[in-house]
């Protein structure tokens, strides 16, 4: 009897606690309970990449949602490759395994022509299943990536972040290092605004590390034989040097100079040669690094500067997880004058605005329940906490959230940077053949990075084969 009483009281306290906890993160719990009522007991299954935002959604948002609505969420987080393989195969075969999938900004252009995603606009017009506080207008312009030509929306932004320049403020501010740099280059050590300065700083820090016998390098890259190396060229290096849209002429979908593209242009070759050459200033294992290892190596304090996905700022700023907490800041990447002018005028961009949305596959058997969950993850009152957990912002109001305002200086003023400089960055171009194209780019880029062929030869072959692929695919 006593044991049963203790158990009952414990359960009551736990229920009250979790309910209270859930209620503090949602302004209108009664609406959610009512909206979820018809779908109580349903299980929805989704898949995403194993990143901090996805883990936050899986570990925090999903259990709270389940508690409130009675809709069970099975949120599978896995590697980037596996996520795509599973999501694409599910949607292509119509097997209906997943009710929501992560739709990255670059792949949405492949999904839309295939009609793989559910149009969410009609759902937004249904008050029974759309949160009164949803506020579509509050989303940043990142949501435009998930619209079709008529403005219908196919994904609710889940995460958005920049890939930009990040550097060690402690190293850049060290008087001994500053003096040594000035003596060598007759210039003050400062955040580089052009590629020559970036190169000099990279060389300086790597040589400095060798002299001092410490593991310190002036450059980092994601140079493994993996799609990441192709992305790094197309999305980071080339745009900052004035080559946009993967070097492809989007009007005729051709890559060779002869057909109006830029892949085999002198500028593209110079940029690629620079990239391959710079690897000598990176850690020895750089050709085994994907984006994960790049971030980990920076977080371990081994690198002075780099252009890295800034979704990592969250854990970099945690002293329990990284060696660089409180020692980093962000800035624009080095750019050519043309690239910066193009970006400001809207004719180009200087780097990658990464991120994705939660979309509902056409084959989902629980679309309404999945729609409720997508809104739950995107609800306003949780965005500040979500930004803290995942270093991502998809709503304009989040920039004014007290949590974000407090976090900003700890993360090198990243949120201010994102708000002010975000418009200079852009996502991937609208290429419906994104996947096969990325594989083709990977083949030739990795051959040059591995030294099998020269960068020039790689780009000549890449341009030629890209044109052949486009023709084969009917473009």
């Amino acid at each position, binding site marked *: 009897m006593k044991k049963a009483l203790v158990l009952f009281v414990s359960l009551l306290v736990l229920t009250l606690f979790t309910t209270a906890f859930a209620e503090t993160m949602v302004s209108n719990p009664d609406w959610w309970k009512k909206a979820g009522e018809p779908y109580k007991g349903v299980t929805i299954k989704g898949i995403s990449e194993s990143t901090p935002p996805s883990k936050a959604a899986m570990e925090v948002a999903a259990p709270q949602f389940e508690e409130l609505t009675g809709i069970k969420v099975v949120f599978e987080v896995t590697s980037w490759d596996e996520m795509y393989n599973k999501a694409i195969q599910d949607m292509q075969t119509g097997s209906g395994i997943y009710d929501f999938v992560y739709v990255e900004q670059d792949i949405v252009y492949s999904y839309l022509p295939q009609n793989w995603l559910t149009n969410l606009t009609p759902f937004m017009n249904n008050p029974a299943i759309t949160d009164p506080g949803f506020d579509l207008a509050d989303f940043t312009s990142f949501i435009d990536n998930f619209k079709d030509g008529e403005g219908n929306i196919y994904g609710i932004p889940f995460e958005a972040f920049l890939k930009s320049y990040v550097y060690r403020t402690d190293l850049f501010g060290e008087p001994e290092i500053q003096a040594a740099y000035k003596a060598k280059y007759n210039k003050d050590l400062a955040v580089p605004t052009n590629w020559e300065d970036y190169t000099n700083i990279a060389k300086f820090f790597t040589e400095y590390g060798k002299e001092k016998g410490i593991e310190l390098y002036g450059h980092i890259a994601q140079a493994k034989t993996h799609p990441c190396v192709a992305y790094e060229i197309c999305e980071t290096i080339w745009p900052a040097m004035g080559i946009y849209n993967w070097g492809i002429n989007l009007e005729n979908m051709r890559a060779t100079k002869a057909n109006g593209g830029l892949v085999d242009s002198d500028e593209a070759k110079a940029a690629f040669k620079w990239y391959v050459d710079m690897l000598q200033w990176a850690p020895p294992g750089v*050709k085994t690094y994907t984006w994960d290892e790049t971030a980990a190596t920076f977080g371990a304090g081994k690198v002075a500067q780099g252009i890295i996905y800034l979704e990592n700022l969250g854990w970099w700023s945690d002293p329990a997880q990284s060696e660089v907490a409180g020692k980093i800041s962000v800035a624009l990447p080095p750019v050519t004058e043309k690239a910066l002018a193009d970006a400001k005028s809207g004719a180009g961009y200087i780097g990658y605005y990464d991120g994705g949305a939660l979309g509902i596959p056409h084959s989902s058997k629980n679309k309404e329940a999945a729609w409720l969950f997508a809104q739950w993850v995107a609800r306003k009152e949780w965005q500040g906490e979500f930004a803290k957990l995942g270093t991502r912002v998809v709503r304009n109001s989040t920039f004014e959230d007290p949590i974000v305002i407090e976090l900003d200086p700890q993360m090198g003023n990243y949120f201010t940077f994102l708000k002010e400089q975000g418009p200079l960055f852009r996502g991937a171009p609208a290429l419906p053949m994104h996947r096969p194209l990325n594989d083709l780019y990977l083949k030739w880029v990795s051959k040059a990075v591995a030294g099998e062929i020269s960068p020039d030869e790689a780009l000549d072959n890449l341009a030629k084969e890209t044109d052949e692929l486009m023709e084969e695919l009917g473009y």
Partner: protein
Amino acid sequence: MRGKQKQVWGLLTPTLILLIFLGVVPIIYILYLSVYKYNVFSKVGMVYTGFNNFRKLVFDPDFLKSLRLGLTYVILCVAIELPLGLAFANLLTYEYKGKGIFRTIMTLPLAMAPISIGAIWVLMTNPDFGPLAVYLRNIGIDFNIGNNANQAFIATILMDIWHWTPFVTLTFMAGLSSLPKQPFEAALVDGASKSQTLRYITLPLLRPVLFTTLFIRIMDTFRVFDEVWMLTSGGPGTATRYVSIHVVREVLQSMNYGYSSAMSLFLLYLTIVVCWLLITFINVSQESG
């Protein structure tokens, strides 16, 4: 009798249905796809192309390179694993202190999933902190599988040997323990040395086990994927892009279903030919033995 036959077929039918559904139907579907140009992201959909996919295969330098790499990998792995496995098996027939510990440690890699093996080797070969890289650097060898194609190739071979030699050892141990004792006793009486016993008695008697193990290992190494994908993803460049990795890239990354179906069929044909050759060789050598 008839009733018994009915019973037998009744018991076999579910398995046969499953095998047909999982084995035969996919092959028929691949046969169908192989004569089409079909990329999931193509604007023009499926286009009938006859045998052009197969013709393209024969002249595709990337596919031919992956085939050459794959066959080299098979030959080197098997050529090392079989004698090494036999040596270990022989060692385990003797009694000595620590034999149990040796057997346990040696068998551990076999208990792990291939993807875990790949993950372990990623750490072991990491140029920044992996033990292999560090120890080799201490003796003046710059070990970096991200930079050096030959080192990456050798690392994948070593990984396979580390993973699968225990299997070969266990197979040979089973074989050795089932050999008749009389020939060995007769050899001892006749004063044959250990190497003479091995060469003229053990190996000939072990021939069926040897060929079966050879057969299994050739098939397994030819279709290697998980470990190598984890360790190198086929890189650096195309240095370890074995044929299975090449096919997976075509299917899952390029989404080129038509061409990769043709590739898969060609590999199936190649596998059947190799199997037939091996079985013929086994039968001939058994008849002559």
